[in-house]
């Protein structure tokens, strides 16, 4: 019981930090870092639930694998976009990216 709670608390705090970072950073790469942290927090929660509530159901671990895949993919595509943007505008600062202003 105690370990589960600990893990969950950790997950919660990491999520909060990651959210703060994703919203407050101007650079695209930093935003991606925040997202990574959030995903990491999710993974922690998942593993904790698998380990302490249903260790014999491996779908939990499967979920974690998927989340890891998503992390990787997100980084891939994100950096691809960053490259493209950098090539077009010369910077990846999100403050200047108001092209879709309505």
């Amino acid at each position, binding site marked *: 019981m105690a370990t589960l709670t600990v893990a969950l608390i950790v997950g919660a705090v990491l999520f909060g930090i990651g*959210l703060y970072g*994703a*919203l*407050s*950073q*101007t650079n*695209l790469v930093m*935003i991606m870092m925040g997202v990574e942290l959030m995903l990491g927090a999710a993974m922690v929660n998942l593993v904790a639930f698998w380990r302490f509530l249903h260790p014999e159901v491996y779908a939990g671990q499967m979920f974690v694998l998927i989340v890891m895949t998503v992390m990787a993919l997100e980084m891939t595509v994100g950096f691809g976009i960053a490259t493209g943007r950098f090539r077009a505008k010369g910077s990846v600062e*999100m*403050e200047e*990216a*108001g*092209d*879709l*202003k*309505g």
Partner: protein
Amino acid sequence: MITATLTILGPLAAVVLILLLRRGASALALLGTAAGLVGAGFALAGMANGARYAATLPGLPGLPLRLVVEPLTAVLSALVAVVGFLVVVYAVGYMKVEDGKVRSFAQVSFFLAAMQALVLAGDWVLLLAAWELIGVSSYLLIGFHLDRPAAASGAARAFLYTRSADLGLYAAIFVLVAGTGTSEIPATFDVGGPSATAAGLLLLLAAAGKSAQAPLHGWLQDAMAGPTPVSALLHSATLVAAGAILLIRAYPLLPPGVLLVVGLLGGLTALVTGLVALAQTDLKRLLAASTSSQYGFMLLALGAGGPFGALAHLVAHAAMKSALFLGAGFFQHARGSTAFDHLTGAGREHRRVFLGFVVAGLALPGVPPPGGVWAEDAVLAAAFGAEDAWAFVPLAILGTLLTGAYVARALRLLWRGEGRDTPVAGASWMGAGLAALAVLAATLGAALPPLARLLGAETEGLGLGAVFGLAATLAGLTVGWYVSPGRLLGPLRGLAESGFRIGGGFDGLVARPALATARVLSVFDDSIHAVVLGVGRLGFAAGRASRLADERGIDGLISALVDGVRRLGGRARELQSGLVHKELLLAVVGAALIFLLLATGL
């Protein structure tokens, strides 16, 4: 009876046909009056054989309309028919150069029909209606020349004078019908006492107005602005006769006191208007004053107790005066005006017309053998035989003198001077009518005894009155021929010329106050009108204000709505900043909301 009513129906049919067909007016009028003449002749013949006709028509409840053909009414009807026919014959010639034939002949026929109805009336209601109708016809006929202001004012004056006097007739009829409960004329004469006196005086008022007696004599002068056939028909023989006819028919009603007043009024009028005639400078106005004077004679005779004398004089005067007027009309066409200045020598150039004029003119004061003398005799005989002869006789003698004087003056002014040779259109028709009337004037004397027998009156032979009368006539003729009016009248000339107006005359006493009252009432009416209009305008203003408020209100609402939506849109637009971090924030908020919804189980 039906043939007798042809006297009314003939002219009436002529009116209707003329107005419907609008052509051949003169022929239709001639036919109508000829039919009337036939009817009147038939009625008179019937009277001679002792027949009496009567007819009752539906009228007011309890007061049916009656037509009565008895000797008196038959004689009068024949008079009107004969004069009417001859004047229409004359008018065919007179109107050859004038416009408005349809109007004129229709109006003359209408007048004749109304006059016949008045003469044959057997009850007061029909008489009153006919009385009013002849007043209207007179107005229409005098004002015939629509473009002459003198004609319009003359017609209005005539109408106002006679209409004011007609109030007397209304009041008298009221008294009589209320007193006896029936409107049949002979029956109402049974009312006695003060009602009879009152009725008699009121009838005198009405008669004085219609017959142009003093002080109501002014209108006849101004009525001469109408065409001459009108003057000949209406204002010598028929319309002005209506007053005398009224009094002759009402003779059985009048008590002795009223008769005295009647006689004195008549005599005074004869005198005053005789002076007026002497001072006139226009032939027709002279003849008009003469008409008033002669009717004064008739009233004098009536007052003296000789209704037959009045009737005889009426019949004779009708022929004489219309002949004189027709002659005046002929001279008017020849010279273009009726003022004596323009007519000098007209007698010389149209001698046959002048002859007719002379015959009728001499008959007027009573020169034998023309018929007028016998009528004058009757009048004078009545005057001499009356109870108050001391008042009547001098008036009669003086009146005869003046008559001779002004006739001689007129004849002299027409004869003296150079004759110009001017052709006159329609001379043959005019001459025919004039000639017939002149012949009548000359020969009526022979008809008087049979007339008297018919009416059951006695005629006296030549008596004292005849002698005095003849003497006065000759004296008057001589004086009038040789002495000028200025020397005759002296200081009275100006007054006489203007017609002896008293106290500002009719204008000052009646017309102007009436018009002033009318103006005040008109202002009052206008103010009411303005109030009504104001209410209407108020309604309109209220409508406009409501519409304005409506528009502004609704417009304001709509623009407020539009503004609000636009502002809201602006705010919403701010969400779409295009900046990634803001959108991320929105995504986070949205996700939290969804999570909440899912968690609370909605």
